[in-house]
């Protein structure tokens, strides 16, 4: 067992863990933050995407110990304290960018990262940037629209590094 200290959604967490524990297992099993999902075992589907020090990463591909002293943000940590949706979450709702909802947290976390890295992402840019996220329900059509709309709102509100 090893000791781990990190920040998750703005809260400092201390834990003793098996060193082979993945970050996604730590989030889901230890912290019960079950919004981050596991859809594959080869780092292909992106359902487990979280932010690690502000960058979108696949948490199935990160050992929990690698997140020591880092800031982790999950899907549970992006809406306002009163429950108001983040602009990207709101855009997914408005544009029907989700159906079964399983891949959705990963898409939203990646989309926020995309919006922060691209001022006005084109459809082509968004489709290329979503390469690491699989959705089986939507055919991506409405996800692309949602990312574009969410990015526009984020741009207006100055949510860019």
């Amino acid at each position, binding site marked *: 067992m090893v000791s781990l200290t990190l920040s998750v959604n703005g809260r400092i967490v201390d834990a003793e863990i098996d060193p082979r524990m993945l970050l996604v297992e730590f989030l889901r099993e230890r912290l019960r933050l079950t*919004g981050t999902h*596991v859809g594959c075992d080869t780092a*292909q589907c992106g359902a487990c995407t979280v932010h690690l020090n502000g960058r979108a990463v696949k948490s199935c591909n990160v050992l929990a110990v690698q997140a020591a002293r880092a800031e982790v943000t999950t899907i549970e940590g992006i809406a306002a304290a009163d429950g108001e949706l983040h602009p990207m*979450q709101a855009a997914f709702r408005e544009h029907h960018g989700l159906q079964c909802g399983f891949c*959705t947290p990963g898409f939203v976390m990646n989309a926020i990262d995309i919006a922060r890295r691209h001022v006005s992402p084109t459809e082509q840019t968004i*489709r290329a940037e979503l390469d690491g996220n699989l959705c089986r*329900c939507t*055919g*991506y059509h409405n996800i692309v629209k949602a990312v574009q709309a969410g990015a526009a709102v984020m741009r207006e509100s100055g949510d860019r590094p």
Partner: protein
Amino acid sequence: MNAPHVGQSIRRKEDYRFLTGTGTFVDDIALPGQSYAVFLRSPHAHANLRSIDVTKARACAGVTAVFTGEDLAAAKVGGLPCGWLITDVNGQPMKEPPHPPLAQGKVRYVGEAVAVVIADSLYQAKDAAELIEVDYEPLPAVVHAADARKPGAAAVHDIAADNTCYVWALGDKAAVDRAFAGAHHVTTLEFANNRLIPNAIEPRAALAAYSRGDGAYTLYTTSQNPHVERLLASGVIGVPEQKLRVIAPDVGGGFGSKIFVYAEECVIAWAAARVNRPVKWTAERSESFLTDAHGRDHVTKAELALDPDGRFLALRVATTANMGAYLSTFASCIPTILYATLLAGQYTTPAIYCEVTAVFTNTAPVDAYRGAGRPEATYVVERLVDAAAREMGIDRAEIRRRNFIRQFPYQTPVALCYDTGNYEATLAAALDAADVAGFEARRAESARRGKLRGLGFSAYIEACGLAPSNIAGSLGARAGLYEAAQIRVNPTGSVTVFTGSHAHGQGHETTFAQVVADRLGIPIENVEVVHGDTGRVLFGMGTYGSRSIAVGGTAIVKAVEKVIDKGRKIAAYLLEASEADVEFSNGAYKARDRGKTFAEVALAAYVPHHYPLDKLEPGLDETAFYDPTNFTYPAGTHICEVEIDRQTGETRIAAFTAVDDFGRVVNPMIVEGQVHGGLSQGIGQALLEGCVYERETGQLVTGSYMDYAMPRAADLPSFKVGLEETPCTHNPLGVKGCGEAGAIGAPAAVMNAIVDALAPLGVRDVAMPASAERVWRAMRDAAK
């Protein structure tokens, strides 16, 4: 007045929880003291099980139990049942081999479960599973459908020495043969409908708890049909049905692959009682590839006979369908009842004959996958029609128009009776939306860039809401095909809707609430939809075959009508009027100039101080079961435009237009979303996806997302989607269903477009998936 909700793109009620990570999928649930299960799976496609030694595994730290097929047999755990009995051409029942949840004596496909380990932690269970010693005696395997009946092929089951599950036929063979003998032209195609792996992004999972105090089981599982799961799984594990509660909470996509009542959830439920602790199992994606029921996998020869004007005279189809190693819950009805019956398509073809040979192979069981039989039928008909038009020099829209059914109801020669349709309308709208008139100019522009451009059509028919139960029963169905609903009016006038339909992405919580809010004239916020729990919902057949709005929605309407009728009796008493004089509209009962709101009537029903207790029970809570009189028949035209790189064979979808007629549409936003998803799976089948087993050994080659090409965002275009509304004539909502249409229409449209692009080179066909390599080879071979 309450604004109407039906027909509006109301944003979904279910979205908030999914967007904030607060949905509840099976793997998100943790029960106190839960243990973890890991299944040991066969590495061989076909082998005798000489012995299984679990001694070392049982001795591992944290291991609670290890069970094998012998343990299940000793405990009288039964086999997994098939839900549809097909009778073959000789009047004999199909071959129905036993399907033990854990292999007994023999393994028959790579991934078949051989043993289960239950431990305190997942890692302990995995480590222990590696210590199980299995002595396999490998046997020759048969993998391809086309190989199954060859002389000398290995027999998958002793009861089917030639690997034949059934040979089944539909239609008038003599009439078809006569028509072919006198035909002006015959178009023939031979092709495979490629095997697909459904790949819902949520892997299958099961979590079972047992309460020794009352002998009750609770099974959380990823199911599209929890009541069917309860009925079948309780029988498998030998538990009284009322002692098993099945909960399918939020389910992350199904596409047919979560209909099957699988081995794992039965074993997990049974084991929970044996170890007297909750047991949890979640598939890894590798297990999903190996063991989720696959889809399609047909090999077909199809011939279309035409007169000199391009009118269809007859259709003759011979198909071999791969069932896999065991019969899944609905495997047997898919290439028969849901396939051959659709071969009339949108056309007046007077004579049709289809013969289907279903075979066993050493591959994963095949079951329903989005469209289930209907994509395969559409592929046969629409590929033939495009090919015939090309061979006879007739415009492809024109040949379709010449053969369209225009009078309804229309009795096809393959059993179905279409109640309504307007195929000209969807074709015309699609031609317009796709700017087919401008295609030749675009083709010339592509040619200037060295690219080949092609246009493909697919005018599909679908049959949704499989019914009625008595006819389906006479055809071998072992279940009813109705749906159930309950409308519980709460004392404050809000409503809880319990539906036997199950949503796993379809947005029923919104769509059904729209229907109920309008019928009762109450705000949509006052309507709650509950599904997926046999402990709360009275009964249900679940969601498959695009049936939920047509069958489940109608059951809800029937229950609402009962609520309104009882409310009218209460209102008549309160208003001192005769029942016949009380009208219900906009959420209020009115008689002469007096009225009572729905909420006031609801309160009176639950606080019956002024109430006709001598004539009427208190309360306002009604149920309905609805068994449709016919299928519904959505139809539409899909037009695909592709551009092919001459050097690499890479195919790009330049545009995809779908105009569909789903009858009345409750929520256009949700319906269009369903179309987008279906199209992406249909395009995936045509261009990217194909399950590949190594032909000699039965090893799954496409066993991960590195090998199985799932459509990604950059593989797909934005779609042009249009809707025509020809209401269904036999349900009160006028709805038909929309979930599968995209996957049904798209493959033929894409492949017809590819063939159109390559036809000038002399190419007649390319196999699905039309990878760059296959297209490049087709071009090269044509040039030889």
